[in-house]
């Protein structure tokens, strides 16, 4: 089930949420959330559910065993075994088929069978294992608590990846409050708006311009993905945070206006924050971080970014994309960042936009060659014309979409909301609510229209 399924919006969420208001007062609150989460996940198939349950059991038992052992070598052995099995499951579904499918074609089917959200909830589980091993936090009190931590339906499919030590206190107590509910509802609606109205329409623009080799068309094609990816993922993350808030949890933001960053390093402090934090805490810092020799530090940076690239995908373009991001960060450190600091502010933003546009181009292409061809066309190499009718039509067709996207991605939408609040003072709540109801109705309209299937009459 996805957040944008009408069955989620109008059945699952209201039923589970309304009933939770009763369950929240009992000691079965977490059990209730876990059962709801397993039902939510079972929507995607019982096989996926079985994998999730096995992983939950395995990691819970591992965490408990680690915490119960006092002998350091045994603790380490259990850690290695737990992490090894988790990584093998990830490798089995995500990489084995892609890397070795040529030898045994039946392996190629494996990535298609991967349970939804596997790499997200596995990383949440690993966070628990590492934190328990490092005694940063105690092992979960119960399997129910651990299940809620790793498989809460609000984030099991697409994160944000949980950090065990910071989230653990909430497992014991996550009281509902009016503020949390209001914030949660607003976050959910904002996320829905980003996903359905912005991301899904950028996806249409992206597919409409596939193969366009004019300069404008190619640039628009690149920016369509640039915005689609951001609004899709940040929209989902907001919906996840909003859902969590409706159930009394607080999840930290996963995105913080990343396209307003003025350097690649700044960008990665704002983009998919939960993943960046995970790699920093569990890979970069254990490797020594920056408190090592210069050459070792270079290796640490590149190692983290190679792994970040591989986490996103098993193919060469993802690996290259990871290395590209790592190299940009190293480049920014050259000369103690002086060259970057000397740039005017607007130029730093342009630099960030261009570097990330190029990065997402590698990310979105199935081969390096096609990615490089597309990047070449950004710089007028290999274009067939400045603009063709398909490009101009797409540009005119999506003008409103682009303007709204820029307003939202730049954070100007918040300024507008504050302006509206200042103008309308006491009636702001009613205005804002009316606005969100309209936006919600538009989202439902778009979802309904997108669900229209084949037409019998069309073949007639």
């Amino acid at each position, binding site marked *: 089930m996805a957040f944008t399924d009408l069955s989620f919006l109008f059945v699952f969420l*209201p039923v589970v949420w309304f009933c939770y208001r009763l369950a929240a007062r009992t000691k079965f609150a977490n059990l209730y959330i876990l059962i709801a989460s397993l039902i939510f996940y079972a*929507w995607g198939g019982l096989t996926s559910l079985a994998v999730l349950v096995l992983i939950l059991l395995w990691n819970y038992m591992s965490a408990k065993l680690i915490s119960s052992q006092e002998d350091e070598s045994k603790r380490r052995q259990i850690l290695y075994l737990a992490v090894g099995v988790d990584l093998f499951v990830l490798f089995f579904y995500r990489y084995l088929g892609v890397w070795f499918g040529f030898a045994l074609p039946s392996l190629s089917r494996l990535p298609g069978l991967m349970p939804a959200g596997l790499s997200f909830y596995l990383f949440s589980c690993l966070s628990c294992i590492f934190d328990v091993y490092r005694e940063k936090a105690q092992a979960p009190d119960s399997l129910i608590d651990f299940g809620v931590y790793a498989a809460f339906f609000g984030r099991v499919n697409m994160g944000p990846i949980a950090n065990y030590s910071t989230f653990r206190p909430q497992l014991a107590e996550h009281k509902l409050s009016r503020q949390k509910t209001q914030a949660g509802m607003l976050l959910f609606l904002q996320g829905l708006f980003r996903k359905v109205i912005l991301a899904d329409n950028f996806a249409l623009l992206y597919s409409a311009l596939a193969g366009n080799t004019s300069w404008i068309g190619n640039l628009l094609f690149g920016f369509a993905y640039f915005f689609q990816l951001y609004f899709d993922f940040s929209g989902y993350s907001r919906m996840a945070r909003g859902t969590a808030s409706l159930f009394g949890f607080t999840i930290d933001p996963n995105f913080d206006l990343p396209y307003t960053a003025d350097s690649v390093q700044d960008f990665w402090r704002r983009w998919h924050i939960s993943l960046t934090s995970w790699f920093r805490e569990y890979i970069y810092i254990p490797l020594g971080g920056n408190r090592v020799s210069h050459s070792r530090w270079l290796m640490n940076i590149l190692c983290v970014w190679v792994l970040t690239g591989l986490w996103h995908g098993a193919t060469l373009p993802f690996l290259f994309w990871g290395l590209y991001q790592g190299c940009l960060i190293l480049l920014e450190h050259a000369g103690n960042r002086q060259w970057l600091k000397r740039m005017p502010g607007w130029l730093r933003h342009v630099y960030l936009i261009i570097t990330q546009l190029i990065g997402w181009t590698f990310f979105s292409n199935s081969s390096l060659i096609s990615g490089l061809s597309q990047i070449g066309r950004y710089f007028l190499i290999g274009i067939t014309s400045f603009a063709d009718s398909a490009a101009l039509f797409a540009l005119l067709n999506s003008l409103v979409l682009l303007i709204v996207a820029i307003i939202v991605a730049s954070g100007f939408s918040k300024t507008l909301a504050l302006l509206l609040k200042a103008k309308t003072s006491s009636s702001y709540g009613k205005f804002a*609510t009316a606005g969100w109801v309209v936006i919600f109705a538009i989202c439902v309209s778009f979802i309904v229209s997108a669900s*229209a299937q084949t037409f019998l009459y069309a073949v007639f």
Partner: protein
Amino acid sequence: MKKKLKGNPWLVPTMSWILAGMMLLSLLLPDQSFSQTENRPLARSADFTWKSMETGKTGKDLNAWFSDQIPGRNLFFHADYLIRKMSGQKEIKGVYLGRDALLSDPEKPAGDTVTENVNAINTFASQSGMTCYVLVVPGAASIQSDRLPFEAPAEDVNPVLDTIGSTLSPAVGVDVRQSLGEHASEYIFYKTDHHWTSLGAGYAAKTLLAAMGIDLSLDDFDRMPVSHSFEGTLASKTGSLFLDDEIELAVAKNNPNYIVTWADGSKTSSIYHKDALKTKDQYQVFLSSNQSVVRIETDADTDRTLLLFKDSYANSVIQYLLSCFSSITVVDPRYYYENLDMTLGSDLFTDCVFLYSYDTFVTGSSLHDVLDGWNTEHAPEQAQPEAEAETQPAEETQPETEAQTDPQTEDQPAQDQENPEA
């Protein structure tokens, strides 16, 4: 600043009522079986078998079920159209929102389909001995391109149509681009449907029959409006509002008598299916719904008989042909699963026409599938004259007989000259 924006006491109660209201309505309202607006059956159940639950199909079914049965689905569907139109969008799901009309983007040719269809027709023409005419009809986006939105990148059909025309031999191409183009400003295509109107079909029929040596005057037909509320496939696809069409029949003034034998063997005395006017698919008034084979016996004073391979575009053309042939056998290969010999039987056809919309011709494989089966059976090198003569005397002798009796054979060069662009 953040806290100030989030402190909205109205939002949660309002959204709670909306979510609860929609949930209750969806539980209480009875399921619908068919959407008139979208013109398709709606999901009403889910597959709860173990295998489906294992693979997640049950979840998908449940999503589709709820999505199809959501209260106010039509309202949301139309709202989507209005919002997109108001935001300046000029294309929805491959349909251009043109000037006072919806125009579908022509399909891109699928693989070698065009070549395969042309080759199959040419082989059929040479092996059957019939004079075969091929009419591939471009849609409104090509003929009425002035109605397209500014810079709409509609697929250019001309290169493919030119290729079809130049590669047809011995079959004869009939090009209607010019004749339709001359009447582009008239109501020749529906505004909400991908078909042409009776008027558009009439102009094309005139061109087709001229190529066959038959003179047709549209003045010999009464135009009878039968519906003012037709909303076709393009309206169903986009959810458009405030656009509808008029359906006219073209009834010959000489009121020809004929008997129609439908695919199920039933017979009627009209090609029109007027019950269709009460349904969503009003275009079905022409020759009813999809029929694999329809035979029409007319009282026309002529020896000419027609074998017509077609898609739905031909349905509104047939009304113009009733006075020109003593019999018309209509085959729609998309729904035809029999051996063509069974249908052709012992009938001797003087003429054969392939009448297709551009989209079907460049993407559909059913035509060459049906023809290839027949062509293979009747390939000259495989023919066993004595054995075949015993089992299929009619087909064996047909080519030679037709070559001798077909009045069009001598006209062939003249027809080619009439269609230089083909």
